């Protein structure tokens, strides 16, 4: 009896209309064409003022730096997200919380690393992503031993379930921080996937596809990045999220891979991933594999807006806004450094 179209608008109609309005403000190709022609960052600021961003840089002291632009772009996205999150009820609010958990994982790893290197808390807090902030961020810094750190994280953060299942107290002490990050992310992705499948309907149709791609992309990236490091194949295969299309055969093959060509051979078996590997390369004219992955992700996320009455639009909006931030920062860097050869390497969204 889940005729979502009939019941969706009771709780979520206003927010869906709002997020589609926000999506209409995402920069189009014409806007990017304008931005690429800027000579200085002040020009960039002027061009951005005529888009949905408006005068967001108005109060910044000159000279502008790319970091400031990046922060303000993120701030706008965070304000929009928080506004929608404040208006949401179940199950949308749990869904939106899941979206923020990935930023929380990055923040926690940042704080743990900073604590271990004795950095001051104020410096660390400013580096954290605002979407992933939670109340007890300061508590992590106060912890003196790994045991206290573990307890602080376990009790106070919403990420506790992801810690409990896979990381024990000794692990925090011994394991490399990157392994902790990837283990947490794996647990988070699988939990998000289960939550979306259980929601059913169009939401699960779209979200499961998006999360499967995310899981497979992480598997590929982890494999490629682990060549030449001391990560064993067993440890590597423990980091692969199991909710993607590659599970179980592709992941087993990836676990055995020794170099880039073998990874590419695994991708040949999957119709969606074969073209991503084909065009990629490290030569000057090619796109990198990361770029192809981003392009594919943008394609998937734009499709979320083709259907009504599902939660996927909120997830897709955040991902598209992130890509837009990356694009603008890339263009800004090229402009600031006056190195315009690769300025067209942004990924157009609409």
């Amino acid at each position: 009896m889940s005729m979502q179209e009939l019941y969706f608008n009771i709780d979520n109609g206003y927010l869906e209309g709002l997020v589609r309005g926000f999506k209409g403000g995402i920069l189009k190709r014409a806007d990017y064409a304008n931005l690429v022609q800027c000579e200085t960052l002040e020009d960039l600021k002027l061009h951005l003022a005529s888009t949905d961003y408006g005068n967001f840089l108005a109060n910044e002291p000159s000279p502008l730096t790319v970091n400031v632009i990046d922060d303000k772009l993120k701030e706008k996205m965070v304000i929009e997200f928080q506004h929608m999150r404040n208006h949401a009820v179940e199950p949308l609010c749990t869904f939106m919380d899941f979206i923020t958990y990935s930023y929380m994982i990055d923040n926690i790893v940042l704080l743990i690393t900073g604590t271990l290197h004795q950095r001051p808390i104020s410096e660390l807090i400013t580096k954290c992503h605002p979407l992933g902030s939670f109340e007890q961020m300061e508590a992590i810094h106060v912890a003196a031993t790994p045991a206290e750190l573990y307890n602080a994280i376990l009790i106070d953060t919403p990420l506790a379930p992801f810690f409990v299942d896979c990381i024990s107290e000794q692990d925090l002490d011994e394991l490399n921080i990157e392994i902790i990050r990837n283990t947490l992310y794996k647990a988070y992705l699988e939990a998000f996937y289960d939550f979306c499948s259980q929601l059913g309907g169009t939401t699960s149709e779209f979200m499961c596809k998006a999360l499967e791609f995310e899981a497979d992309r992480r598997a590929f990236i982890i494999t490629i990045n682990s060549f030449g490091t001391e990560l064993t194949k067993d440890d590597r295969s423990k980091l692969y999220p199991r909710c993607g299309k590659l599970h179980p055969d592709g992941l087993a093959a990836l676990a055995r891979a020794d170099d880039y060509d073998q990874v590419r051979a695994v991708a040949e078996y999957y119709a969606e991933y074969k073209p991503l590997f084909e065009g990629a390369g490290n030569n000057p004219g090619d796109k990198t594999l990361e770029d192809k992955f981003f392009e594919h992700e943008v394609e998937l996320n734009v499709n979320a807006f083709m259907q009504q009455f599902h939660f996927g639009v909120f997830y897709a909006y955040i991902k598209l806004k992130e890509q837009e931030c990356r694009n603008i920062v890339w263009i800004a860097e090229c402009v600031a450094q006056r190195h315009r050869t690769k300025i067209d390497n942004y990924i157009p969204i609409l």
Partner: protein
Amino acid sequence: MSLYWYGGHSGFIFLVLVLVGVYYALSGQGYRFDFGWFLTETSPYMWANLGVGLTISLSVVGAAWGIFTTGSSIIGGGVKAPRIRTKNLISIIFCEAVAIYGIIMAIVMLQIIEPFEADSATTQVRRANYMAGYSLFGAGLTVGMCNLFCGFCVGIVGSGAALADAQNPNLFVKVLIVEIFASVIGLFGVIVGIIQTSKITMGNKAK
């Protein structure tokens, strides 16, 4: 509420009914399930007034459903695209039309209802009154259910129209055509209902 919950409860109720039926059949009391007795003993007024009630209430539920579905999308879309606010009130008007059909039919139907003397009625009068009762119930169901689904449909399409209009103003008229087709189905219900109630009369002079 999962499918298992629904399946379990309805299976249980079905089992109880089957057991009661089997008990009656096997103990020679099958004659007690007399549908004809039920139809002749219940008053035609019950059927008639149920029909009137169904007309207005189901139509109003359909209209209300459509209005909130469309209205929340108009409000959401109107934040970033304020120009859609006035034009999209047409969708709300289509939904409201569904409720108007319901109340018109209800008034037409309840004008027909008249008391009659059950004891001194001839067979012809009795037959006419019973037919009127059943017809009014049928018409009520027709109009009510048609308007209910019409309201659902107009609401969902209206919501799509508002959000499409917010992105691209050229789309509004195209989606409105779909909405017009959606609202016609409520009209079909009213037409059939009118025909169903056109030849009936109630009261002591009924034919």
